[in-house]
């Protein structure tokens, strides 16, 4: 009976969850050909994002802002080739029934057309969006997005997120956050910004040194290393109630990495030797994970939490190893490069990114499959590139580079390419970490 209960109830919950949360998924499944385009890796989706229709002066201004927000948002993902709408894309001869000229769309090579109308009612914005398959002139999505006038960014990004999920079958980066360290105030403090670098906000005021910020998967806790007590200490801040827990044991604390919403792993040395421990969100120690005389640091977990990649100097110079959390068995992952550190496990589970300090002095980012195969170099000839962290959809990597002088936050495709500066400013930016939520 209990067994049956255990099997049936989760099943029902999953079905209900899917029905409530993923009505779009069903629509996406019907349009499988678009998902197939991406899977075959046949390049970017050719999209015409038309200018929004709006009546009235204020409405037109909001529509223009939203045009920019949606264009920049979709462009950031590098999933699309954005094609300017052809002049005759809409036929206005019958003002009550504006017709989309699909012939004009296909002639400019568009695969997908997105357009809509903005209206305003008592301070609220209504955005009616329609997405068509340009060749088959088939309606793929019709949805209204509503929000306050000051929330244009979230309205536009909600559509962007739906469009990407519809066309790729995967969740996008819209809504995710990046935390990082900046010396803007003269101290090393933790900051956050949106996935695209928008809305930078200072999170700590330690007037000391902060290192290695990491958000829990649910975004409710922020783990970091702080020197406010005079020595490097692991802090876990509850972002809901603001309470801060710390590890009170003596010794060092280094580079936290979350295993799930309640356990964060970090290097501690309560008995002198540095080992990786699992720590609860109240700062209490849950379990020692490593047992080796050498340096063991920088834990990062497979999405299911069953495997941990980390750095160890057990063979001499630092290399990346993978430990099975159940059996404790450890396998060496990296064999090329003399100094490999800073591993980051992709949220998709398949790949691990890390940095190699090369003989010529460069530090470069590599990715390798979790089984050690398929090694690929992502950065080169650009001085020091450090601290890779995957976007929640696994499509991008945030990292730092000092290629233009000071160390700054950059993003690139997780397959390499599209490297670009994320944040302007004169400050030194280090140790970015992308949230898993979005």
């Amino acid at each position, binding site marked *: 009976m209990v067994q049956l209960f255990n099997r049936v109830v989760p099943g029902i919950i999953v079905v209900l969850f899917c029905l409530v949360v993923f009505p779009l998924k069903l629509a996406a499944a019907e349009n499988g050909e678009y998902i197939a385009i991406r899977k075959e890796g046949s390049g970017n989706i050719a999209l015409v994002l038309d200018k929004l229709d709006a009546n009235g002066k204020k409405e037109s201004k909001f529509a223009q802002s939203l045009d920019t927000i949606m264009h920049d948002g979709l462009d950031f993902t590098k999933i699309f080739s954005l094609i300017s709408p052809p002049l005759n894309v809409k036929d206005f001869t019958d003002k009550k029934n504006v017709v989309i000229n699909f012939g004009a769309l296909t002639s400019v090579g568009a695969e997908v057309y997105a357009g809509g109308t903005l209206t305003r009612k008592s301070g609220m914005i209504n955005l009616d969006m329609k997405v068509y398959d340009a060749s088959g002139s088939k309606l793929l999505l019709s949805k209204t997005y509503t929000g306050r006038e000051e929330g244009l960014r979230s309205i536009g990004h909600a559509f962007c997120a739906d469009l990407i999920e519809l066309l790729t079958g995967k969740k996008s980066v819209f809504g995710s956050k990046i935390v990082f360290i900046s010396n803007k105030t003269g101290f090393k403090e933790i900051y956050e910004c949106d996935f695209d670098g928008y809305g930078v906000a200072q999170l700590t005021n330690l007037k000391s*040194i902060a*290192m290695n910020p990491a958000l829990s998967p649910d975004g409710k806790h922020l783990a970091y*290393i702080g020197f406010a007590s005079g020595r*490097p200490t692991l802090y876990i801040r509850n972002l809901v109630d603001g309470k801060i827990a710390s590890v009170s044991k003596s010794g*060092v604390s280094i580079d936290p990495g979350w295993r799930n919403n309640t356990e964060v792993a970090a290097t501690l040395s309560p008995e002198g030797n*540095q080992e990786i421990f699992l720590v609860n969100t109240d700062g209490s120690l849950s379990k020692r994970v490593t047992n080796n005389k050498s340096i063991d640091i920088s834990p990062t977990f497979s999405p299911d939490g069953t495997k941990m990649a980390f750095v160890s100097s057990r063979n001499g*110079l630092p290399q990346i190893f993978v430990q099975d959390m159940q059996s404790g068995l450890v396998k060496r992952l990296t064999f090329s490069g003399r100094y490999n*550190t*800073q591993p980051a496990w992709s949220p998709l589970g398949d790949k691990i990114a890390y940095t190699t300090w090369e003989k010529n002095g460069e530090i470069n980012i590599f990715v390798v499959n979790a089984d050690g195969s398929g090694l690929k170099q992502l950065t080169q000839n650009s001085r020091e590139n450090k*601290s890779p962290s995957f976007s929640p959809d696994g499509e991008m990597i945030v990292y730092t580079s000092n290629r233009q002088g000071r160390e700054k936050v950059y993003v690139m495709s997780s397959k390499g390419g599209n490297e670009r500066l994320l944040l302007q400013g004169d400050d030194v930016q280090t140790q970015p970490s992308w949230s898993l939520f979005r």
Partner: protein
Amino acid sequence: MKTMKPLLRTLFIPTMLFLGACACCEETVVAPPPPPPPVIVLPGLGDVFYDFDRSELRADAVDQLKTNANWIQANATHNVIIEGHCDERGTSEYNLALGERRANSAKDYIVNLGVAPARLKTVSFGEEKPFADGHNEEAWAQNRRAHFVAE
């Protein structure tokens, strides 16, 4: 005699009040000296230096560590903090680990010479607090150190 009493009283009382007031004033003027600064670096304690990516003691560290141990034994009122530092190369998480191992190797040597471990604290600053600002081996060699601070 009897006629003198009120006169004595009139002289005596103001005199005592005056003296009392002076005593009060004197107490506030002679305030206790400010406490000495809590951290002082005294001659005798010196830093030791490390090779690239190593935390083992170099041969040239031994004499300095013996001097430091003698100083600590002779200055029983001071405990000592040993800070482990690294140069800027490599990655900061690894350097934070390496810094602690440097501080520990210096501490272990001094404890073996007979200093009570309770008098020694270690802390790692990794590459966060370089002593020399340059980006060359001269600066790096100075930054790979265990720095001794008397409490």
